[in-house]
């Protein structure tokens, strides 16, 4: 696939990196030559210095035979104009733009064929905010990922003593809570995957991925570990795009304190946020943290632009007694270093947000992609089309489907109903199937399996 990426910022370069590894031809345009040089050094792609919304630059980058335009520059306006140009002048088939301003997003008619011709808009900050909000809602979980517009969820949790399931085989789950349907999709023990069977015994320290209807998450979590008291106090360090959105999303339901270093930014934040207590200071200043009683905080989120600061301030918070600390870390080397140590959750923005883009690049009708375990595993939501003849999935029971080893069908969403993937569940056309893949190398095979055979059209 030929893909043109506008903007070589954090989002642009992360996307480029993921897409290059999936065998695509990538061209990146940015006005900053230095950024592009860095990118080209690392990755096998073409770069072009210039204005991303200028037709001549786009032509030079080969927009005429591009399959997909990804406009992810810092500016919403440039992204929108680029999509419009691609549609009007070059007939680019798929146009995706990063749009951050809710002012635009609340008026979806702006993006239709008659106006800016944006096929899909993505907002990485919003995805990250939603992701963190879920973690705050379920402080016991390591990850909460949503499928089918939030109807079904995939939850990662570490098993601890106190959960009834620990020390018992998986089949115990069903007999222990017959009214709640949930399915364990994978278990990672000491970082290596186990294929879960009915007789697999859950041990303490196992990282369990289960799929359940979103309303049942809490009950299933109870099986895996002792529950903490629900979150009430949240402290956020860093009032940038993510911190601000998170504070706004949380301030109605939780007590939120937001620490921001820049005085001017503080004034702006305090004006925008209704209930959040905005504090001017340094997130790594232990006196400030103590003074604002960090020891009573349920969830502490370090979300500044600076990895080192995030790590240090969350370590300080954990030391001082914060119950759960989340640090935003961009450099993947740091993520591996920190995860599983004192910091409860190391969030890599690239990993969290890349899925929403990958869904558009993949073959077949992929509605949702979530990267798991730092990109090693993946969960996909695939929409099934065709009939028994043209598809290798439709009309078949799950145990009849030729899934590669390491891939499991976790659940099927049919209309509003969430059906757990048991061996005798039959797949129908237009079902959304959630597939868990423990090894990313198998993703291609899974996608192929779900594609409609040629001749269907």
């Amino acid at each position: 696939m030929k893909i043109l990426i506008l903007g070589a910022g954090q989002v642009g370069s992360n996307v480029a990196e993921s897409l290059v590894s999936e065998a695509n031809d990538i061209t990146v345009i940015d006005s900053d030559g230095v950024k592009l040089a860095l990118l080209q050094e690392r990755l096998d792609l073409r770069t072009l210095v210039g204005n991303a919304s200028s037709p001549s630059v786009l032509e030079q980058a080969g927009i005429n035979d591009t399959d997909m335009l990804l406009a992810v520059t810092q500016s919403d306006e440039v992204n929108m104009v680029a999509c419009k140009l691609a549609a009007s002048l070059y007939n680019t088939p798929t146009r995706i733009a990063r749009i951050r301003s809710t002012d635009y997003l609340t008026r979806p008619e702006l993006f239709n064929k008659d106006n800016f011709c944006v096929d899909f808009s993505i907002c990485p900050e919003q995805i990250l905010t939603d992701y963190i909000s879920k973690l705050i809602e379920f402080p016991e979980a390591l990850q909460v990922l949503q499928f089918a517009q939030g109807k079904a969820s995939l939850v990662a949790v570490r098993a601890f003593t106190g959960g009834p399931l620990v020390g018992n085989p998986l089949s115990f789950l069903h007999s222990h809570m017959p009214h709640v349907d949930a399915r364990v999709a994978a278990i990672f023990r000491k970082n290596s995957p186990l294929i879960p069977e009915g007789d697999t015994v859950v041990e303490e320290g196992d990282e369990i991925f289960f799929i359940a209807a979103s309303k049942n998450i809490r009950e299933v979590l109870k099986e895996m570990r002792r529950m903490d008291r629900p979150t009430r106090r949240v402290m956020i360090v860093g009032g940038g795009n993510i911190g601000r959105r998170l504070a706004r999303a949380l301030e109605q339901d939780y007590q939120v304190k937001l620490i921001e270093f820049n005085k001017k930014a503080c004034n702006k934040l305090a004006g925008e946020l209704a209930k959040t207590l905005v504090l001017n200071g340094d997130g790594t200043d232990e006196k400030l943290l103590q003074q604002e009683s960090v020891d009573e905080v349920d969830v502490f989120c370090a979300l500044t632009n600076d990895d080192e600061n995030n790590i240090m301030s969350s370590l300080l918070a954990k030391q001082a007694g914060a119950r759960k600390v989340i640090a935003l870390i961009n450099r993947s080397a740091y993520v591996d270093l920190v995860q599983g140590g004192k910091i409860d959750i190391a969030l890599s923005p690239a990993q969290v947000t890349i899925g929403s883009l990958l869904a558009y690049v993949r073959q077949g009708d992929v509605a949702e992609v979530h990267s798991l375990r730092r990109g090693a595993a993946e969960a996909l939501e695939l929409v099934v089309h065709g009939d028994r003849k043209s598809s290798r999935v439709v009309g078949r029971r799950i145990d009849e489907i030729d899934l590669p080893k390491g891939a499991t069908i976790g659940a099927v969403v049919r209309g509003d109903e969430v059906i757990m993937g048991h061996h005798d569940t039959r797949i129908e056309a237009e079902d959304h199937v959630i597939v868990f893949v423990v090894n990313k190398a198998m993703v291609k095979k899974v996608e192929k399996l779900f594609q409609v055979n040629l001749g269907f059209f």
Partner: protein
Amino acid sequence: MGRTLTVIHALGLMLVVFSAAYLMPLITALIYDQSEVFQDFLMAMLLTLTSGVLMWAVTYRYKGELSIRHGFLLVVVMWTGMPAFATLPLLMVLSELSFTDAYFETMSGITTTGATVLTGLDTLPSAINLWRHELNWLGGMGIIVLVVAILPLLGVGGRQLFKAETPGPMKDAALTPRIAETARNLWIVYVTITILCISSLKLAGMSWLDAVCHAFAAMGLGGFSTHDSSVGYFNSPLIEFLLMVFMLIAVINFATHFVVLRNRSIAAYRSDPEALSSLGVILASCVGIAFFLWWQGVYPEFLTALRHASFNLVSIATSSGFASVDYAQWPIFAPLWMMLLTATVASAGSTGGGIKMIRTLVLIKQAGREFVKLLHPAAVNPMKIGGQVIPNSVVFSVLGFIFLYFMVIASLTFVLLISGLDFISALTAVLASLNNCGPGLGVVGPASNYQGLTDFQTWVCTFAMLIGRLEIFTVLILFTPQFWRR
């Protein structure tokens, strides 16, 4: 000197406009066939008109833009000059009335205070009664706002004058790009609601004259009545209810009414923090005072208590000053609570007086900010009212205003005490005058009026009304040395 003449030039023009106000009592005198009164009013009108034209013509050479300083001067001169001219018909018709009392009466009218020194209101010529009420109504929205509205080519700094006359700490709410357009729209809203009020009062059983007079007094939140026993004369729950409704309308910012009418949606009321707080406080107080009166046994039935408590409370709290019963006889908590509300509940941009709800909100929020600051020294906590950030400069000006307000209350009360008035009468007379409310307690209570005061005390109250209507700064600035320094 040239600038001062510019002020006189503008003043002349305003007097010419003001002389048109005599038309209504003239027509009334014709209808009721009071030819002597008609002649007196005609004379007064001609006098005002001639003085206006003279001032305007003589200083024509100095026509020009007014500086900020002279804008203040013009407003104050206008607001002292107008009541002076307005006394002419009173002095001519009521020969026994002294100038002091007549000036008090017209000042009380035009500042929408509604305090009176006249008795035997029922027997006054209809034209005189209408004149008093018309002053209430004109003063409510502001005569200068009216002039700015109808004479956009006045050649005076319209925005400056508009700001000096309109109450409230923040006056830059631009409804329309042009200040004359804004002023015109406000007057249109004002007139429309007044016409509604007149018709509903007429339907409720008042005579035309009473309906017009009481509608004027209610919309201007003045509180003059054509009867000595005020609204108690009608003894009609329906009339009391209607007046309450229109007083509550008038206590809300007219800019909000305008937005509501323009957008044809009541969303603007919900997002006006002043309106919500004012109505909330008034409603809660009505029910609370009704319970209190019922519990104290003043009224044996709760519904009667609710009726009298709500009408009198709404009337006093909105700074109108109608009365339906002698509420001074109630246990002292109730009338004092009503006096406290007078000082606080009116919205900026309404026709009411006092320190205004927005300033009250600013003060309360400022107190809250201080608490937060003590607990969280690093907190950044800007003042927000209705989701809008209020700049610190406004907070400071509000604090300055409140300080002056209380200093004025204290010093004028002392002045009245020195002159021999008792404490409750002195304090409530100052409060009622400064807040443009009308009746106080004691000697100046709802059952009596300001007739019992000495000339000196009357002048003190007159002064309090003026600075209350123009929100202290505008008047007191003339007494500062900086103002006169070049």
